[in-house]
């Protein structure tokens, strides 16, 4: 049975984004499962600092050699930082999806998180796919 890293401290979406919630700030990226499915990531389309997105809306996209996938907001928020390092090293998302491969940081405006799974639920979900 293949297994992917799913750090306990994070929350997850079924669409394979993760979020680290610290007070009213959030850091968002995609999971180890996602980067494994996508294969070599060649480009990450980032939003601009100051952009505001509602929960469930696309805030950017990730491109591999053969596919392009939208990135969905786990909660509503305003973008406070973007990982500009991804412009030159998009493969950080493959090598370090939960650390160097973080994509955006946000100020959470609506903490409604009923769609968020904890690590165990997400890991179990990945086994069924």
């Amino acid at each position, binding site marked *: 049975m293949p297994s992917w890293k799913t750090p306990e401290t994070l929350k997850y979406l079924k669409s394979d984004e993760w979020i680290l919630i610290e007070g009213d700030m959030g850091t968002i990226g995609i999971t180890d499962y996602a980067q494994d499915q996508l294969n070599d990531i060649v*480009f990450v*389309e980032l939003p601009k600092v100051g952009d505001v997105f509602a929960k469930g809306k696309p805030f950017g996209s990730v*491109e*591999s*050699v*053969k*596919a*392009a996938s*939208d990135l969905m907001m786990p909660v509503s928020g305003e973008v406070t930082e973007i990982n500009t390092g991804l412009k030159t090293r998009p493969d950080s998302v493959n090598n370090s999806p939960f650390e160097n491969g973080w994509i955006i940081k946000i100020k959470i405006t609506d903490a409604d998180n009923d769609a968020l799974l904890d690590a165990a639920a997400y890991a179990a979900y990945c086994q069924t796919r």
Partner: protein
Amino acid sequence: MSYIPHTDVERQQMLAAIGVTTIEDLFEAVPSRYRFPKLDLPDGASEMEVAAELQSFAEANDHAGDFALFRGAGAYHHYIPSAVNHILLRGEFYTAYTPYQPEMSQGTLQAIFEYQTMIAQLTGMDGANASHYDGATSLAEAVIVGLEASRHARKKIVLSYGIHPHYRAVVRTYHQWAGLDIVGDDADHSAEDFANLIDEDTAMVAVATPDYFGRMADFRELAKRVHAAGALLVIVTNPMALALFKSPGEMGADIVVGEGQPLGIPLSYGGPYVGFFATKMGLMRRISGRIVGETLDKNGVKAYVMTLRPREQDIRRERATSNICTNQGLMALAATVYLSLMGKNGMKRAAELCYHKAHYAAAQIDHLNSYTVDQSQPFFHEFVIQCPVPVAQINAALYEAGIIGGIDLGADYPALKNHMLLCVTEMNSKDEIDTLVSILNEVSEKAGVTA
């Protein structure tokens, strides 16, 4: 690869596998009265007879080669070196289609890469795609990039009156359901009035140099205004003119488009032509159309491959920039061969011939008492003449002398009644120009016009 047709036994096996007895059974969904309709066709004719009949149809048309042609307006009569056709008609190029398999398509891919490179160099931009259907389509596609750049938050497109009327019509048709506010081309606005149309809701501004009336302009100031408002600037241009004049890239264009027909493609009654599309590196991921890149294979050998594929409609589907995932391959190749043969110096010489002959013609015509040539702005090889009599009358007289005169602008622009758009290229000899001028003079004298 072998292409062996199915045998009857294989057909029976296939029919049995899908549960029918005969091939006719597959047509049951078609009502019987439509299934095998009576076609009232004449008997087949021999190749000789067919060739003769088609020949007589063809001879009913006048051919550009039989006339001295002084008409442009978006399609131009230039000399095509015979080497262009020799290369184009080679089976390897002529029948090759989409280079999806790079291992089998290096020739096609390299040719496209060279095309992209030369277009980028000519236009002063960072990169180009593998081409669009024609100049009008390229402009319509550029509008999409403008809308995407503002994430569809901005809905206003400002188009210059000077852009070819057909291009502006195509932009409106293409985007008729997008809820856009397309403005600016209702009148020949001054540069200041035009720039004042740009606001926070403007996604893109499009202008042309040379424009439909032949006028050249420097858009550096406009580019600053466009960028200050957070919009994109598209410049429509003529590749032949770029051999002589400042490139749109140097003026600050974000996208450069236009018709590539002047580059080794015959007039052919309107097509096939080829639309070029060049842009800055930052926008390459947003543009539609095929893009070919240069890379190294696993053995370190230089190779060419289609790249930035996730933009394209066959992969991104409804989230792609556009439905386009093809290019005008053969015509782009013709342009590539032409540019390669002519080179920088050849292009410059051809453009200079067009420029000087056109300016000679303009001076001679302006010198006639009853005709005026608009020389208020610099022009490349086309200019507008104010005529003393209807253009149709002048063109009828020219036709008798084996000359095709310019476009009657009054047809599309009511305010320009009796105005003719004349084009002169390297194909027009001095004798032809002098004959044209003398006939213009005769027509006005016969009509009794003195000044």
